[in-house]
């Protein structure tokens, strides 16, 4: 009983932080003519409410796709429609066709923020609580501490409640998927994950681990018997849920094609704005965007992505385990973020979610990663005037992690999950015992540079010739960190001896 009270306290704390952050500014507040993501979401409510389904994704006199045209899958559109009905009930002006463009008021902000909170409360938060309760081998206190840390992760809070998006919906569905698949409710898990993909196409970053894990499960059960049945069931679930979501758009071929074109805007280029991935960092020295033709860019980015995630995926297919699945989710999402085509800075949240899931296993590295991921969005957050909430929530998150996991005492090889890797290196290099020390120094350097760069960005004016200097530096530094993490996570996956030796313990 007392544990549940403590859990309630932790959740309430998470909700309080969310709501207080939501009192701050949002993206594009008072910045006509384009405004920002807040206006995009409002505009989608307007479009979905006033236009028939057939016109949602098409350019027309009523639906100018240049002005925040709908470019997310159907589930987002349905969600907008649902919100629009509520908006209509409260104040029809908020979603009036054409005339509501750029509508801003305190009441409307309150309404929009509430929709985010409700979606979060219904989908993401229950998934987090359930996930932590299902964790094995840790005490109830630790489970509650884990919930606290995940709920306080600043990146998601700042983007959803500050900048304004509904990432908690797609990430929440993905988390339900992870939960289902890890607890052997494979059908429910894949259904939840299909919903996630149909809410935001970026969830495809997570799709390969899901696919490999489920396929591996089928192999394990034997493709000639039980495994085959499971495979058929799974494919039916996936196809059925996709058909259900896309039903209105399957009536005509052109509809489907148009939605797909909107979802995957190949012509928008290799990357947008400043992203902490390889392409953006490389283009500091070499303007790939201008040098190479578009289709070569696509091929290169595809090859890099594919190569970087291949080893982890093969390993997962051959040895499917929930633990390996979680780590593969991290490394695949990170590969996609670093190498794939058309990445947004907010997509780092897709990596952060699986990292949150391994928080209790490798607290030190996860906390570090989550700090870097929040830092990588600094230019965006500064643009939205979210400096104070960003700094405050990041510090709160850091304190929460530091106290509940005492991360600084968990930097031994064993606790960094690098034991088996070090042992195999020591076969060739007997003096290889300094790895934890190096990692500690790297952490300190990384945190120090992040703090320094934040201070510089906030206090100094960039030189006139290089107005983007600081944001480029932020992205470059984060990218370096992410590359390091990619290597680290791949090492963990490849040298994962635990599930080989005693699979019962981890399953």
């Amino acid at each position, binding site marked *: *009983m*007392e544990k549940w*009270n*403590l859990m*309630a*306290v932790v959740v*309430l*704390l998470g*909700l*309080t*932080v969310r*709501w*207080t*952050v939501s*009192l*701050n500014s949002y993206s594009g507040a008072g910045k006509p003519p384009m405004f920002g993501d807040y206006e995009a979401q409002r505009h989608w409510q307007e479009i979905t409410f006033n236009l028939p389904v057939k016109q949602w994704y098409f350019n027309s006199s009523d639906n100018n796709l240049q002005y925040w045209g709908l470019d997310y899958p159907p589930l987002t559109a349905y969600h907008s429609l649902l919100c629009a009905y509520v908006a209509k009930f409260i104040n029809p002006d908020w979603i009036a066709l054409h005339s509501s463009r750029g509508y801003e008021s*305190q*009441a409307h902000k*309150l309404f929009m923020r509430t929709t985010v*909170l409700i979606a979060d409360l219904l989908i993401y938060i229950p998934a987090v609580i359930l996930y932590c309760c299902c964790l094995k081998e840790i005490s109830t*206190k630790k489970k509650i501490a884990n919930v606290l840390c995940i709920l306080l992760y600043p990146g998601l809070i700042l983007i959803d409640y500050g900048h304004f998006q509904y990432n908690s919906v797609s990430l929440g569905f993905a988390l339900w998927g992870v939960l289902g698949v890890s607890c052997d409710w494979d059908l429910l898990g894949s259904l939840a994950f299909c919903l996630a993909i149909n809410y935001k196409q970026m969830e495809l970053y997570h799709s390969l681990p899901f696919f490999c894990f489920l396929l591996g499960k089928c192999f394990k059960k034997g493709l000639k018997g039980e495994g085959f049945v499971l495979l058929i069931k799974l494919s039916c679930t996936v196809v059925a849920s996709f058909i259900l979501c896309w039903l209105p758009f399957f009536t005509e071929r052109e509809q489907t094609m148009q939605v797909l074109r909107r979802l995957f805007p190949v012509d928008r280029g290799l990357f947008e704005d400043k992203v902490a991935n390889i392409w953006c960092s490389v283009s500091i020295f070499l303007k790939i965007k201008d040098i190479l033709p578009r289709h070569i860019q696509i091929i290169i980015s595809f090859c890099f992505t594919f190569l970087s995630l291949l080893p982890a995926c093969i390993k997962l297919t051959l040895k499917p385990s929930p633990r390996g699945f979680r780590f593969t989710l991290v490394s695949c999402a990170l590969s996609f973020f670093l190498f794939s085509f058309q990445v947004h800075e907010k997509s780092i949240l897709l990596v952060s979610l699986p990292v949150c899931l391994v928080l209790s296993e490798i607290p030190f590295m996860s906390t570090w990663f989550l700090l870097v991921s929040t830092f990588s969005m600094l230019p965006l957050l500064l643009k939205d005037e979210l400096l*104070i*909430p960003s700094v*405050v*929530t990041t*510090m*709160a998150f*850091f*304190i*929460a992690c*530091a*106290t509940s996991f*005492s*991360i*600084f*005492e968990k*930097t031994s090889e064993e606790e960094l999950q690098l034991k088996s890797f070090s042992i195999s290196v020591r076969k060739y290099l007997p003096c290889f015992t300094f790895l934890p020390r190096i990692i*500690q120094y790297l952490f*300190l350097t990384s945190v120090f540079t992040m703090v320094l760069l934040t201070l510089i960005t906030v206090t100094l004016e960039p030189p006139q010739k290089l107005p983007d200097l600081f944001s480029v530096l932020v992205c470059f530094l984060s990218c370096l960190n992410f590359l390091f993490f990619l290597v680290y996570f791949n090492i963990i996956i490849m040298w994962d001896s635990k599930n080989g030796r005693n699979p019962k313990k981890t399953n």
Partner: protein
Amino acid sequence: MAAVGIATGGGNWFSALALGVTLLKCLLIPTYHSTDFEVHRNWLAITHSLPVSQWYYEATSEWTLDYPPFFAWFEYALSHVAKYFDQEMLNVHNLNYSSSRTLLFQRFSVIFTDVLFVYAIHECCKCIDGKKAGKELTEKPKFILSVLLLWNFGLLIVDHIHFQYNGFLFGLMLLSVARLFQKRHMEGAFLFAVLLHFKHIYLYVAPAYGIYLLRSYCFTANKPDGSVRWNSFSFVRLISLGLIVFLVSALSLGPFLALNQLPQVLSRLFPFKRGLCHAYWAPNFWALYNALDKVLSIIGLKLKLLDPNKIPKASMTSGLVQQFQHTVLPSVTPLATLICTLMAILPSVFCLWFKPQGPRGFLRCLILCALSSFLFGWHVHEKAILLAVLPMSLLSVGKAGDASIFLILSTTGHYSLFPLLFTAPELPIKILLMLLFTIYSISSLKTLFRKEKPLFNWMETFYLFGLGPLEVFCEFVFPFTSWKLKYPFIPLLLTSVYCAVGITYAWFKLYVSVLTDPSVSKTKKQ
């Protein structure tokens, strides 16, 4: 690495709790702030730009300086930092000025001065040893006490949303209480004297200090049965105490005495022009009295016992500070409230004299003084309930009976603060924080005293659960009914009457426990 761990509070739960709540306070910066924000900005301007001789005469703004001199000097000190944020806020004629830098400065000034509050709690935790030490950290009385004080809901919303500087003032009070617990009586007396010259509302609890210091410090020994041994009186101690109080007062009021302004200062400090109740009735005895009067007058009208033409047409909660005219019951004068308050305080003070129980007994008397004056005082603000809730937290971790009184008092008292925040964006914050604090306090104290009898009987449980429906009705149902225009005061009326019942009950229960408790010598024999 270890250094970083210590610096960031790794493993050190107290600093993690304190830092955590400080960060929460920073998140509350953009929330709604009341006119008190302008009050304090105006005081900054007055003390910064005018000579001392005009501080208590200046009346450009309606929010004149009405706190004792130390607080004025405090504002003066703050203003010298404020000028680096925004010079404009220090202009007396810049009424209602609130630039974003002003907001940041004022909010951060509250957050920074709370350091004293945090330190005081740290000291309190040292001297309060709860009944038993649990094995787990979260079950230790010290841990629970620090959460109850650091994360106190009332203080959070009054200081960091509504805007006031109660944090460091309560810090001074708790620190002086802690010093008395540590037998450093002179320091305790000094701190309390300083506190009185910061904000004179603490005069309410002065009787407890006076009697306690006289009985347990100036008299150095007791007879075996616990009564006072008259020949043990120490003149040196009395004189040194008197000297401390006198010096502090001289430092504070002396300059104004020299300027011959003392009457003006005092008239600013004690404005008796205001009405019996604040615009929103504080949940005290007079709220019940007024409500009873209202009910009687309605019954009287229905039964035609009263003449409708003779009834004064004063809407009682129309938002202005005004006199409330009673129709059936006799009207209440300031003198009557003063007598009632004294009558209510007297038994507890007698108890402190005849049944001294050490610092704990003093703390009980202090709480009773605060509660009695809250219940019967003239023009009481709802915020004054914190004066009882915060010291009560210290008692709550000691005994199951005290814990149950604390929970009733804090829950109803905190709920009665809800009308302070009436804006829509703050509605979720106050509900979430209130739930957070209430769930934590109830569950942690229940765990602490799980081996003893349940903390609440069915009636108390029922009463506390009733707050939920009340909130739903007041904030979510009532605004959509047709009564909203006709009887806009109903939610406030219901809230203050409902909470008044709980607070009076808690006061009564505490009084009973103080009067029936065996004295120290007896308990020692058992």
